[in-house]
């Protein structure tokens, strides 16, 4: 956190000053470790084993916050009798289809619930679980419970059995963490739990970029629920995201499988008709706020297609494109390699350096008809045809590369107005300081005018496919010498308005399903409430409460802490005065407190839903998790995940170690792309070392915003690799000399930094060496070097289709790598020795 989010880390330092204990778990000793009370080195890719060990410690010693767990989680819920655990099936859950490599999750359901008749393969292809970023997956209302937690099939007991073998000894064996160190963490974490105390859990892409990334986070969430650390101040599972508005680009998704507000992009088989689509979102009969989803869906279509969207034509539902499978960025790049894609837009992103398997990225781009790159600087993805690594190896000859490239310079953040959504769902509006120079333009300008020109060119078209373009509501006011469209007008559309009057709606509860409201993103509805840009609010922090509710605007409805009903006990009183956040004011009959209550404001804690209730009425007065379909925090996930209802330790797709826990080596449901240009190393002696990559404080992701700047480049001027003194001795490496790292995909070179900050680990009775590389470098800029992401292959988490680019296996050799055509021959030699290529 100190490395990548230094200014956010001031609050950790503030907490430390007030007596908080800071624990840092990381494969490598970083600037965060330097300031932590305890640093725990861990083998990359084994976090579920570690965290599962903590779960086992909590349950084995009955250290859970029982009152919270019983009332607010699904611990007491009974699971179907057909469910079988990984403990029963040696690393697999019931329902696995080895042919397709997917689960039928029917047996994972709660008792008495009909199995989900979904198509798990299609769900994996379309990363369906990503929809649940704003709300839980659907289950029928009504569950069987055992409040004593003794029923053998209640979630609490299943959890206990599932993690029983995650002992301190096992943690030591899998993770390389000495058991004393592990127990120190367990004790600190559990001691800090209960009515008076909470702990926060913070992660970044060190968790998400794994084939079990979602389950990593699930394990963290299980611990936080067991210890009563969710929905309470000082608690939570906090994702520190790495780009200024990456949360915004998830909420208003530039993602293939989502529409704004986590509505699904239609699937050709699952959502053939409008009513199929709406039913799939609403799930009639389920509990919670998602039951009103038809209003969100209709309002989105009204925002897209305006007057053309009517009840008679299903609000232009037919204009939406349909998914048939995986259309994610990695599948798309492989399709480019195969010549199936014509044109590609890169809008402030540099996949030649930033995405896994850089060679596939660059060779894919070299096989397009055309490429549009919009950026501030000439990044590697704009110049690969001229000076990319494949030009040096002879794989790419500029005179033979057909890709037509347009580089359009972009406006910077001070040259346009608009809002970013930061990592805590907070929208902050930026004022424009100056006009962009030269040909530089905002993305808003580019997209608006591209749409305008295309619509002009199609104006006379009678083709059915062009109706969606011509019907589009595309009349944003423009101003200034460049006809810049109004970002404020776009934000008003995102907020939503009454179609008849054009007046902004006050929030998503005001949205209608009859076409009388339009709303570009229902979860952002309220950001323009009262006709005021709420994201532009800047009441100084010093002049308001510590919650700072009048700085910017957080979705949903300006709530700063989600599920904050859990900050009060079941009767609605704060768990303790120290930890008071929102509470029930019985006198006024309302929820009140420091934040906007994440609950119906007048729902009494004693409210119990009548039999057969659905929707919001089915949420009881003590069900804090209002966007979950049973109102509970899910320790166990009966539906909605592709790879199992509980987290299970699997080895990374590339690992030098056989899974010490199960015969099942890796996540059986992981998404693979088996093809000759994407080889993955099975356990082999050819690639004996573990490598991991991350960022440096001084640079930013693929370097497009840092390696072109003098002041940042001089602080970290060159690509380097960190190795322990032991590994340096083993491989004959000297400090500051060159070395090269080889994987099944690539070889990259770097200067050697020998440091005690990396340490060999004892894992399963042997020594495992880990090396670390920063992934910022590429061939363009003031500071240039080889790209660490070239080392990775493409293998994805099955729930969200995010790649495993935080761990892999490699060889490490002194000296510089080969150059020219010899380079590929060198890598091919490794592939042959590893048995990955014949001949």
């Amino acid at each position, binding site marked *: 956190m100190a490395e990548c989010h*230094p200014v956010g880390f001031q609050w950790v330092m503030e907490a430390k000053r007030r007596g908080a204990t800071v624990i840092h778990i990381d494969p490598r000793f970083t600037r965060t470790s*330097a300031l932590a009370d305890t640093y725990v080195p861990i083998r990359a890719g084994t976090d579920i084993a570690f965290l599962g060990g903590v779960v086992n410690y909590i349950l084995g010693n009955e250290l859970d916050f029982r009152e919270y767990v019983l009332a607010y989680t699904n611990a007491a819920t009974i699971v179907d009798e057909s469910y079988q655990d990984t403990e029963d099936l040696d690393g697999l859950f019931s329902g696995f289809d080895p042919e397709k490599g997917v689960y039928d999750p029917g047996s994972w359901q709660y008792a008495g619930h009909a199995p989900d008749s979904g198509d798990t393969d299609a769900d994996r292809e379309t990363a369906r679980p990503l929809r649940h970023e704003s709300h839980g997956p659907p289950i029928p209302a009504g569950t069987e419970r055992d409040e004593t937690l003794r029923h053998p099939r209640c979630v609490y007991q299943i959890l206990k059995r599932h993690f029983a073998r995650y002992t301190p000894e096992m943690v030591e064996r899998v993770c390389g963490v000495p058991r004393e160190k592990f127990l120190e963490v367990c004790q600190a974490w559990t001691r800090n739990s209960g009515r008076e105390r909470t702990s926060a859990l913070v992660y970044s892409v060190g968790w998400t970029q794994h084939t079990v990334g979602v389950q990593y986070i699930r394990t963290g969430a299980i611990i936080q629920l067991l210890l009563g650390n969710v929905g309470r101040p000082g608690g939570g599972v906090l994702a520190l995201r790495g780009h200024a508005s990456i949360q915004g680009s998830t909420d208003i998704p530039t993602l293939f499988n989502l529409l704004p507000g986590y509505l699904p992009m239609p699937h050709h088989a699952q959502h053939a008709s409008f009513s199929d689509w709406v039913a799939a979102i609403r799930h009639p009969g389920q509990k919670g706020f998602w039951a009103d989803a038809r209003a969100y869906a209709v309002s989105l279509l009204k925002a897209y297609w305006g007057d053309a969207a009517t009840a008679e034509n299903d609000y232009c539902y037919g204009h939406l494109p349909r998914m048939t499978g995986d259309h994610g960025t990695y599948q798309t790049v492989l399709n480019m390699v195969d010549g199936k894609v014509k044109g590609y837009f890169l809008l402030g992103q540099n996949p030649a350096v930033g995405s896994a398997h850089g060679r596939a990225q660059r060779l894919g781009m070299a096989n397009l008809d055309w490429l549009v790159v919009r950026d501030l600087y000439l990044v590697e993805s704009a110049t690969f045809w001229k000076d990319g690594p494949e030009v040096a190896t002879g794989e790419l000859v500029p005179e033979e590369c057909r890709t037509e490239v347009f580089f359009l310079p972009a406006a910077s953040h001070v040259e346009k107005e608009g809002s970013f959504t930061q990592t805590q769902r907070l929208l902050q509006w930026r004022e424009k300081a100056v006009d962009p120079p030269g040909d530089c333009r905002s993305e808003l300008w580019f997209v608006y005018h591209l749409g305008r020109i295309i619509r002009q060119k199609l104006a006379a078209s009678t083709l059915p496919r062009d109706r969606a373009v011509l019907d589009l509501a595309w009349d944003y006011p423009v101003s200034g010498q460049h006809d810049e469209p109004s970002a404020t007008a776009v934000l008003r559309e995102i907020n939503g308005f009454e179609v008849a009057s054009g007046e902004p709606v006050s929030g998503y509860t005001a949205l209608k399903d009859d076409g009388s409201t339009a709303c570009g993103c229902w979860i952002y509805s309220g950001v323009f409430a009262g006709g005021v840009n709420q994201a532009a609010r800047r009441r100084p922090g010093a002049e308001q409460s510590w919650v700072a509710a009048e700085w910017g605007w957080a979705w949903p409805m300006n709530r700063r802490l989600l599920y904050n009903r859990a900050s009060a006990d079941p009767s609605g009183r704060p768990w303790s005065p120290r930890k008071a956040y929102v509470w029930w004011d019985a006198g006024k009959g309302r929820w009140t407190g420091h934040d906007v209550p994440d609950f119906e404001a007048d729902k009494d804690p004693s409210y119990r839903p009548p039999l057969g209730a659905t929707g919001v009425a089915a949420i009881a007065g003590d069900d804090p998790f209002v966007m979950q379909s049973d109102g509970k925090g899910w320790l166990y996930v009966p539906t909605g995940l592709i790879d199992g209802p509980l987290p299970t330790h699997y080895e990374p797709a590339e690992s030098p170690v056989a899974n010490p826990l199960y015969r099942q080596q890796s996540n059986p449901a992981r998404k693979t792309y088996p093809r000759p240009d994407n080889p993955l190393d099975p356990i082999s002696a050819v690639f004996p070392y573990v490598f991991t990559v991350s960022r440096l404080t001084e640079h930013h992701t693929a370097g497009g915003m840092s390696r072109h700047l003098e002041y940042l480049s001089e602080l970290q001027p060159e690509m380097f690799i960190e190795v322990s003194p032991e590994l340096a001795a083993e491989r004959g490496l000297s400090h500051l000399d060159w070395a090269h790292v080889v994987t099944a995909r690539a070889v990259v070179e770097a200067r050697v930094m020998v440091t005690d900050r990396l340490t060999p680990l004892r894992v399963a009775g042997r020594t495992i060496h880990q090396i670390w590389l920063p992934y910022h470098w590429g061939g363009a800029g003031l500071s240039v070097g080889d790209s660490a992401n070239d080392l990775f292959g493409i293998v994805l988490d099955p729930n969200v289709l995010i790649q495993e680019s935080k761990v892999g296996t490699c060889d490490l050799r002194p000296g510089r790598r080969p150059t020219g055509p010899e380079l590929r021959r060198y890598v091919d030699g490794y592939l042959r020795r590893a048995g990955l290529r014949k001949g």
Partner: protein
Amino acid sequence: MSVAERMGFFTDTSICIGCKACEVACKEWNAIPTDGLDLLGMSFDNTGQLDANTWRHVAFVEQTHDGDLRWLMSSDVCKHCTHAACLDVCPTGSLFRTEFGTVVVQEDICNGCGYCVPACPYGVIDQRQGDGRAWKCTMCYDRIRAGGDGGRAGSGGGLMPACATACPTESIQYGPLDELRDRAARRLEQLHGEGVAQARLYGHDPADGVGGDGAFFLLLDDPEVYGLPPDPVVTTRDLPAMWRRAGLAALAMAAAVVASFVGGSS
């Protein structure tokens, strides 16, 4: 010139996260050239030392004791000495002491003679290649003397220096020197109470060889570990005595000359 309160820096290295925001904020504000792109291999330090083009410098020290790793980080800066030898030896009046008690080079006066460079007991002030003039931290003299509240106000009424403004963890604190000394003493006491026995202050003592620094530090190890001189002494300490001796000698010489003339005429 009205004399304001003496202002200073207290750099508490125990909460430094080594982010180098101070280095960048300093360069952006003062438009300082880069020092060049060199991987130095000194842990994460790639600017090396304070010089004409680096007015804040973060040192990184990796230490291993009995298998326990410690990574010290410390942002160094010009000490703005009470007895500043650079100022003493400056023949042009380019170096001067401001109303805040800080020591500043005036770039329009400096003639690049370089006398100040060897005079500095800390090796801070330096001549810029290709420019020849001497450059060092000004404690953002332009910012701290500004009025208004356009940024985080320093206690002097002006803005805080760029480095202290940026510092994410308040490792770099700017304020009236007396207040900072009190704050530092309390922080030291707290750390000692927490068992951090090695914590000590550096440059805080008006009785030291430079009369105390306007920029002082809380360190977690010996100064040498951070590349700081353990017992700095103002290099011009003996100047007054030397001048007295030189003066006496000159008088004696003059008397002898006079005597010889007198004698000669006799």
